[in-house]
């Protein structure tokens, strides 16, 4: 029941929103919808956490071996919660932004939420694929219609990239289905597959390209800074806060356990090297950015790179670290985007060179920005510290990586670089003398304060007591690592 509600509330209300006459009504409806989704998601964690509420199954395409089956497991709970928390925050923080044809904007936002929920819930490969695309199509229209100047080209690049990835994944999924014993797309049949090593390798490549484009991992990242820069801020928050997690999530659920040998063979060599190169490259590029949005985009690539390295180390610690970090990264980066949104709306610029001196003009915002930035560079007491600490210790204790010291050092350097460019960013925004644009600045409004405070509370709360989230994903992590276990291969 919970599982199906999480998808159908945004889907139905999204469809209704298209036909609402006025922008303000649609704004309120979408807020109500996202609040309702949040409530359902919280109920799934507390009152209705019994398994029977958390799954749903119905016949769908029996001829093709696909059933419409959904289930909320630990990782699903976590990411659905992230999605459910993010949307109200996004709607409230962009409350004052005017959109032409607002009804369509909010309807598409809700549809993309439905798609995201579906991705995290799907227990059937074809259903997963459907939702994977369903999340993409609304974003295409959102960015192309309401984005910046060069929006059409940037969005199109993104769309072609992801579409190429997803069709390759489709080929892989069809192949895997044809190899299952019962010709079924269900995740359990996929987990039972025993493919030979060569096959696993090239199927891994097909699927990984799709996920790597979404995350994005170097060298498939080139769409990201352009798209983040061009899309409207609310959509950027969805893209980087949640949609990026689709890729990480898909690797954990659909790649590692299904193709253990392929993940082992290519994970250590190719993927890790790409991820580490990407981290360093993105960190260096972040230094040179003047546009706030591009800077944050590159910092996101670096963070995701670390998660990828951690996943393929296949240790309990690192995996738990990735889980919690997915949540944290979502929260933190949405916080940063909210600040960007506020700055852009109030001062009409996103360029670091045109900002400065906001500490005097907007003290509340400056404090909140500082906290979120510190969380983003994983200072102790903040949420990311827990995640990164777990990931690093996991990577370092991995039995799989033979160059783990090298990898850890490289990743550690990126963390330091991250601290440098993020603090530099804060410095340029809030310290120094005021510029022409910030001279008559004013502080943030009440509703913005509230959402940013919620984010800060989450940051500190999780930083102090991460155990609840770790407990939530523990069982899933164990199950996935058990499926993905390749240590017996090492001994041979």
């Amino acid at each position: 029941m919970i599982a199906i509600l999480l998808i159908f509330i945004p889907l139905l209300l999204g469809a209704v929103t298209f036909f609402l006459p006025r922008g303000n009504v649609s704004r309120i409806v979408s807020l109500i919808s996202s609040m309702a989704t949040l409530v359902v998601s919280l109920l799934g964690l507390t009152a209705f956490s019994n398994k029977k509420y958390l799954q749903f199954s119905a016949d769908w395409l029996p001829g093709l071996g696909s059933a419409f089956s959904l289930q909320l497991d630990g990782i699903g709970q976590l990411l659905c919660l992230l999605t459910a928390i993010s949307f109200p925050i996004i709607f409230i923080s962009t409350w004052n932004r005017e959109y032409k044809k607002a009804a369509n904007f909010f309807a598409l936002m809700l549809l993309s939420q439905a798609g995201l929920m579906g991705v995290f819930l799907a227990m059937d490969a074809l259903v997963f694929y459907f939702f994977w695309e369903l999340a993409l199509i609304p974003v295409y229209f959102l960015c192309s219609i309401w984005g910046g100047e060069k929006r059409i080209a940037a969005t199109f690049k993104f769309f072609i990239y992801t579409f190429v990835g997803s069709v390759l994944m489709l080929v892989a999924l069809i192949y895997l289905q044809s190899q299952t014993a019962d010709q079924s797309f269900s995740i359990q049949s996929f987990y039972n597959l025993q493919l030979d090593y060569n096959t696993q390798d090239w199927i891994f490549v097909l699927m990984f390209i799709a996920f790597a484009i979404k995350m994005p991992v170097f060298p498939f990242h080139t769409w990201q800074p352009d798209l983040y820069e061009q899309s409207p801020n609310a959509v950027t928050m969805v893209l980087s806060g949640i949609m990026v997690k689709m890729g990480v999530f898909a690797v954990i659920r659909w790649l590692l356990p299904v193709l253990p040998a392929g993940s082992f063979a290519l994970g250590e060599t190719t993927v890790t090297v790409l991820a580490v190169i990407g981290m360093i490259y993105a960190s260096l590029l972040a230094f040179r950015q003047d546009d706030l949005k591009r800077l944050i985009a590159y910092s996101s690539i670096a963070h995701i790179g670390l998660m990828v390295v951690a996943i393929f180390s296949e240790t309990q610690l690192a995996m738990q670290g990735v889980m919690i970090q997915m949540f944290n990264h979502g929260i933190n980066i949405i916080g940063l985007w909210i600040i960007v949104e506020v700055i852009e709306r109030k001062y009409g610029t996103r360029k670091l060179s045109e900002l400065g001196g906001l500490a005097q003009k907007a003290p509340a915002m400056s404090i909140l920005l500082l906290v979120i930035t510190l969380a983003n560079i994983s200072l102790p007491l903040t949420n990311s510290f827990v995640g990164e600490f777990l990931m690093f210790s996991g990577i370092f204790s991995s039995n799989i990586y033979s160059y783990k010291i090298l990898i850890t050092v490289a990743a550690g350097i990126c963390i330091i670089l991250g601290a440098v460019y993020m603090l530099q960013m804060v410095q340029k925004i809030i310290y120094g003398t005021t510029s022409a644009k910030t001279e008559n600045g004013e502080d943030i409004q009440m509703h913005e304060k509230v959402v940013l405070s919620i984010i800060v509370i989450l940051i500190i709360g999780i930083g102090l007591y991460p155990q609840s989230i770790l407990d939530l994903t523990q069982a899933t992590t164990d199950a996935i690592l058990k499926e993905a276990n390749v240590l017996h291969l090492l001994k041979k």
Partner: protein
Amino acid sequence: MNALIVAAILGVVMMFAGIITKQKSSIRLLAIAGLIVVLFANVLDTYGFHFFSIPLNGMLHFDKLSYFFTSIVLACTLIFFLLSAKDLEKVGFHYSEYFALIFFILCGIILVSAFGSLLILFLGIEIISIPLYILTGSDKKNLRSNEASLKYFLLGAFSTGLMLMGITMFYGSTGSFSILNSINVGAEPSAMLIVSVLLLVFSMSFKVSAAPFHFWTPDVYDGAPTVITSFMATIAKAAAFIAFIRLFYLGFGNIQSSWQWVIAVITAITLIIGNLTAVFQQSVKRMLAYSSIAQVGFMMMAILSLNTFSIEGILLYTAAYSIATLGIFSVLAKMKDYSFEAFNGFAKHQPIVAFSMTVFLLSLAGIPLTAGFLSKFYMLKSVMLTEKFLWLIILAVLMAAVSIYYYFRLIQVMYFKEGVEPAIEISSSFKWLLVVLAALVILLGIYPQLLFNWFYF
């Protein structure tokens, strides 16, 4: 059998309707009513109520597939009439004759969907082709229409020659025109038989416009009046396809290994040429012509694999492709200018039409939740089951990604560009019909059993 005879009678009736009444609306109504009667007759046939009992001597072999396919084609023709019958007026003076020719084409389609003997295949293909030659040239004062018609006729005659040659050699090697049970299982096919199969492959490839036999398609589709192109690109093409698949499924299934690679190569070339050339088109009409070639590439996969998935898939594919293409062409037929720029800002002035067109384009591009995705999915799945042509599958999906470019280009100009209001008349019934079709495309994409339950009733 019911539908065949009723359609033939209606063809004659429509021919004379032009003498009795000059009122175009009554002719149109008569045609639509007649078509509904044909559809009804066919449905009765499907459930075992035959109006006529005629000994067929194995010349025709009606089975579930042929009845079902005929129903799909008749339903698509009904959609075509409802959407575009009014635009047929603009083509020329002989309004009722156009309908008569279309009914004759339907006779041909019913023949090719049920042929048991190669002679009937030949007859059916010719009955389809000759009225099409006439319809292509029906805009008599337009030089391009004449050129298209002549081109189509010359090349069509050539390919018919190839087909006859193939049929002759088939008779020479098996001693029979019947495709059922003529080829022994397990026997090594003779060289003559293989040549005959190849000739049939080539001529049928010509009819469905698969590359490298596609060169007539863009010119003919572009030159013909747009309403006629719409009919040619969907219903007539689907008919040629069903003939193709029937010929190989029933006739040459036993010797699949000796022709499979030819089909694989043709499929690959069709996919590449269709998709890559469509990218460079500046006119929507020409883009759709190439897109139809590209779609044929996917449909050819059904012939390559020949299993239950491919039969189900091709039925879904023809339905999905025909509905989407008919929808887009019906809007195009109302436009004066066929270039992409003419659609600038279309969504602002015609939001409902633009929305439906978007659904059709998404379906053609194969985006999930639309019928186009599932039909492509069926094709990939059926080829995957052969376990031999993985390279083709990967090529196909990459080409599908290329197709995004030209389909989305139209979406982009409609939604994201500013433009002047196009001077077109769109009635509200037309709009709602488009919405219904768009809903149908999505419904088939989510729940294709809707179609298959009929097939397996």
